[in-house]
């Protein structure tokens, strides 16, 4: 039996814990052990960005981090964006501007955009394109996503 370890962390403001093998990827721990399947697993090698979460406030790929490395961390992920039954302004903008189609990349796209807009609250379109290039989308052709991030920026600056 492979070595197992107990992992305690905070996800979307709630203390959670589980036990897993040391080789378990953080994204698999979140999905399989904690049941939080909102975060998707795409390429499993840090290229596609579907698994992006906020790790202590900063966007990171959860498929190229071990669950055991999340010990004590504060994670924010897609399930925590909506508050009191109300969509986050970024989610609202993706809805309004057709920033998604199949939805597979969306959890990673939203967390990436959230971090990006915190670092660059008043981005140019070129900067949005560069920021969003961290996540692959095979449906939209990106234009809707870019429009959504552009529309969300002033709303998020105000909030």
């Amino acid at each position, binding site marked *: 039996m492979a*070595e197992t370890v107990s992992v305690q962390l905070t996800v979307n403001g709630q203390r959670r814990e589980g036990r897993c093998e040391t*080789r378990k990827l953080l994204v698999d721990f979140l999905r399989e052990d904690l049941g939080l399947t909102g975060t998707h697993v795409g390429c*499993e090698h840090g290229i596609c960005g579907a698994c992006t979460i906020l790790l202590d406030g900063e966007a*990171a790929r959860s498929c190229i*981090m*071990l669950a055991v490395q999340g010990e004590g961390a504060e994670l924010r992920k897609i399930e925590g964006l909506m508050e009191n039954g109300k969509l986050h302004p970024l989610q609202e903008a993706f809805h309004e501007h057709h920033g998604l189609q199949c939805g597979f990349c969306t959890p990673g796209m939203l967390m990436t955009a959230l971090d990006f807009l915190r670092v660059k609250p008043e981005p140019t379109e070129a900067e949005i394109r*560069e920021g969003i*290039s*961290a996540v692959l989308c095979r449906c939209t052709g990106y234009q809707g996503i870019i429009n959504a991030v552009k529309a969300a920026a002033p709303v998020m600056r105000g909030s």
Partner: protein
Amino acid sequence: MKPVAFAYHAPATVEDALALLTRYGGEAKLLAGGQSLMPLLNFRLSRPAALVDLNAIPSLAYIREKDGEVRFGAMTRQRTIEFSPLVRQRLPLLTEATALVGHLPIRTRGTIGGSLAHADPSAEYPAVLAALDGTVVVRSPRGERALQPSELFQSYLTTCLGPDEIIVEVRLPAMAAGAGFAFEEFSRRHGDFAIVGIATMLVGDGQHCATARLATAGAGPVPMRLRRAEEILERDGLSEAAVEAAARRAAELVEPDSDIHASAAYRRNLTRVLTGRALRRAKARMGDR
């Protein structure tokens, strides 16, 4: 795919990490930011008996200025470097290069020591280390030694580090006030590995050039200082003719290989084009700081 089972250790000190490396006798891998190693583990291209995770060693993450150098703890995150006012002031070439390393979520985890130890020939940090004549400090149970880039980088993904050695610090000489600089690279998409990248620094008055630095990424198995191209600029100045001559010489000096991304001839031509662009941009920036 998922990683093979391994023993996991997260020591709190470099000494404990060194003891673990010695204990596993070459069968352990050091885990820094994981942005290159974790994909290799997921694909089972790497199957270590043990991982020694350096992320729990706080003393390996710092940026400080000493003796005209900026010194980085090996576990300093690329994201920290990107937004460091000290780095922007003293090493603007590194700030510019950092923005080209993967994407922001990659830089959240990726580290300076990890990037250099991985020694990907297309990566930005090895080229900056070569261009700025930096030093890498490594520690083993036998003590510390300081390595120049030409010693550190041996071949594709291969350094001179022994199985019981850890990079603990990276030292980059602060750039002279007013030095021009540029990092130019070409890749298919932003954040992809560069097909070719060129790092340059120019010290002088905009016409004359006291010191020229040119280093490559992606144009051979290791980052390469283009000394004979630098000499053209130091001798002939920064006229358009000299810049073009240096760019042509750069293309003659490199020894690129062909792969799925680009042929050797294409990489050679890119070296000429990007060297010219980098030099022109660096020249225009001289005296700005």
